[in-house]
């Protein structure tokens, strides 16, 4: 009874091989253990010896062929047997075997190939600075070890190296809004129904420690989103909202990281900062006229183009908002109590005046900071705001450009808003919301004449800015706006 001989597994890791030489030919008698062929594998040239005896009726592969494990290689049987059916069957099997090299299974060694192009980069050479800092010993030999202070023996420190807030040089404990609390504290908080979001504890870096939890009892989950502009939809608290609506009821838009940040920070603001609001309606006519004069100067002097921070062809123009930024900055210098932040231990009166400017961008809002706004010219402020806004819209602002302001200004005048109240950006103490310049009839010297008015609302953190302070700031601001040359003079 004829049978097909398949390529056997000649070594533990063999997947395929090259049948380099047949040692028997068709028609030969073979006995058990006779050498049939030599097979080159990845490891060595192995001998394919017969397990059966009989006559070698047909060779199915040629010497030199690449053969896979299990592939038919010969037919053995009784002399003269007809093997055409078997050969056909074997031929089909051979044809269906993939010819390209398969990836070896686990454990099979790779055929050594040319050294791969992706070599690891050579190790960086040790900085030579240490060796250079040598101190000649009395014998004149050069000390080749770095000074002991630079050598930090790891052994003493290795188990002492940890990384958790309160030990490392600090941030303000906020860590991007993440609450510092151990697994145990979080568990107990859950059990007590305390929402730790935005919480500040008494541990280092604002860590919430177990002792803080009793005092936090009653701290509730997220409140409605703060107003950014009147008329904006208020979302119901997550708990009260129905399950995610079916596709035909509402478009489901996943939260982008920016939206999440906005949600978190403004929620935290409204939850923890006691807001109150002071409004004034100032005469903006002088401000508008000053702006026209400035822009005229810029256009005619040709400085506009060069001064344009964005690098495009449009000449730089100073806006009302740029003037207001400067005005606020100057006012803050005069009323420093309004340039302050609350912390549990103390009120911080900032020596610097860094004004955060709200910039609307697609899908949201960012607040790049104009540093030292009190010390910059209006033109410099205008240039900087233009450039920051452009980069904001292109999402290219760096985190440090958007943080650590001391006061914010938000202007919705370009959207036609007359007046509104904004949400404070913690840890700032206040934010000024500005509407559009309105042409309105006003009373002047007993007569009704056309005038320009500008409504502004100051939102204050009552923990640090009292009504009187806020009022004083706004009074100063009005003075500067209505006599705007004082903006330039400071």
């Amino acid at each position, binding site marked *: 009874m004829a049978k097909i001989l398949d390529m056997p597994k000649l070594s533990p890791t063999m997947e395929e091989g090259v049948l380099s030489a047949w040692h028997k030919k068709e028609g030969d008698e073979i006995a058990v*253990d006779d050498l049939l062929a030599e097979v080159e594998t990845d490891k060595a040239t192995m001998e394919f010896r017969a397990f059966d005896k009989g006559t070698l009726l047909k060779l199915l592969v040629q010497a030199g062929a690449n053969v896979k494990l299990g592939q038919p290689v010969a037919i053995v049987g009784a002399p003269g047997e007809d093997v055409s059916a078997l050969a056909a069957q074997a031929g089909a099997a051979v044809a269906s075997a993939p010819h390209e090299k398969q990836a070896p299974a686990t454990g099979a060694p790779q055929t050594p190939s040319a050294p791969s192009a992706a070599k690891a980069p050579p190790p960086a050479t040790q900085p030579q600075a240490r060796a250079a800092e040598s101190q000649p010993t009395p014998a004149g030999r050069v000390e080749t070890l770095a000074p002991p202070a630079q050598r930090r023996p790891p052994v003493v420190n290795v188990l002492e190296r940890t990384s958790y807030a309160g030990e490392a040089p600090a941030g303000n404990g906020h860590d991007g809004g993440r609450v510092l609390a151990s697994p145990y504290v979080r568990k107990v908080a859950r059990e007590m129904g305390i929402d730790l979001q935005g919480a500040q504890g008494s541990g280092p870096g604002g860590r919430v420690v177990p002792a803080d939890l009793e005092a936090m009892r009653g701290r509730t989950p997220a409140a409605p989103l703060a107003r950014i502009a009147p008329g904006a939809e208020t979302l119901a608290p997550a708990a009260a909202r129905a399950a995610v609506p079916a596709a035909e009821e509402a478009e489901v838009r996943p939260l982008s990281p920016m939206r999440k940040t906005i949600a978190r920070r403004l929620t935290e603001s409204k939850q923890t900062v006691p807001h109150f609001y002071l409004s004034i309606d100032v005469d903006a006519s002088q401000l508008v006229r000053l702006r026209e004069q400035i822009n005229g100067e810029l256009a005619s002097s040709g400085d506009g183009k060069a001064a344009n921070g964005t690098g495009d062809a449009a000449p730089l123009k100073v806006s009302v908002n740029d003037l207001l930024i400067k005005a606020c900055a100057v006012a803050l210098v005069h009323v420093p109590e309004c340039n302050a932040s609350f912390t549990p231990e103390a009120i911080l009166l900032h020596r610097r005046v860094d004004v955060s400017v709200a910039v609307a961008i697609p899908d949201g809002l960012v607040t790049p900071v104009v540093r030292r706004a009190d010390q910059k010219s209006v033109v410099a402020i205008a240039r900087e705001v233009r450039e920051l806004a452009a980069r904001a819209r292109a999402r290219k602002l760096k985190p440090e450009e958007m943080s650590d302001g001391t006061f914010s200004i938000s202007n919705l005048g370009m959207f036609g808003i007359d007046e509104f109240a904004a949400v404070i950006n913690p840890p700032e103490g206040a934010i000024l919301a500005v509407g559009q310049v309105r042409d309105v009839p006003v009373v002047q010297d007993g007569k009704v004449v056309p005038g320009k008015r500008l409504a502004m609302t100051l939102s204050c953190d009552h923990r640090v800015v009292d009504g009187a302070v806020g009022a004083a700031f706004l009074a100063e601001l009005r003075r500067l706006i209505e006599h705007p040359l004082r903006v330039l003079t400071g």
Partner: protein
Amino acid sequence: MPADSNIAHVATEQSTPAPQTLGASASPAATPGAAPGAELEHLAHLYREMLLIRRIEEESARAYAEGKIGGFLHLYIGQEAVGVGSIAALRPDDYVITTYRDHGIALAKGMSPRALMAELFGKATGCSHGLGGSMHMFDKEHHMLGGYGIVGGHIPLAAGVAFASKYRGDGRVTLCLFGEGAVSIGGFHEGLSLAALWKLPIVFICENNEYSMGTPLSRSMSVEDVSLKALGYGMDRDRFFADDVLEVEQRIGEAVKRAREQSLPTLVEVRTYRFRGHSMSDPAKYRTQAELEEHKKRDPLHRARALLVEKGYGEPRLDGIEKSVEAEVADAIKFADESPEPTLADLEPTTYKGPFAY
């Protein structure tokens, strides 16, 4: 070589160092007092055992090539006379312990081909429930103590088994087999040293098949005569070629007797040859085809068969033996094929006795 009183009482030759004396193998010594018929039956029995081992090993090689056996597979083909002859000199309750080239030893000691093949196939019905594999053949009932993968690591164990026999005074003997490759490693020396010091009832059998994997004797040993190491430990020794299973039985038998009656160890170097590579991944390029063919002419299996024919055992009965061996082998393979695999549940109870300790 100075005359050495330690080996004076060994019945067969060996006080001269010349290896030429190895060429002369004694004619098969009859068991004193046995009738010639009994002798022939005994030889036939030994022949059957060797043939069973040979066929099991050949089928294991085929099964390995078919992917049914994985990992390492070290075949005993060509060395059958050593295992069969040595164990024939033992009592059933004597102990045997050997290396990873253990299939033939296990079978000779009484393990069933089913249990062996199933273990090779990694099945739950294997002697070690499929957890040991080719190198770890154990059979408590037949006092087969394994099957070890670390060269020379089992030699102190063997000394310990003999130690226990002496401690208890149970009169048992321990056979410890290993290859000549083990003669360089610490475990060999410490085992022999302590066995000689404490006069343990053990026979150390070095199956010198001339190659430690790919390294021939000339490149692995400063002194080619392994049995000479016994002198360093003050131990008796013997040395001969294992072409004749009856001679193996007789000469090992003397060492066994010494162990049992005098509680003294012996180091016996048995020169043999393996017809296959060290293991399945060894193409054995370190020897020539001519050398292999020469050794095959001295195949102890053929020699035993020829002797049986010569002594009138008769082809029909031989044919009967051969057929019964084929049937037994086929049965073992079928059993192994059809047996179930072990499961994860088998792992914990075989790691610790009692509750798992973690």
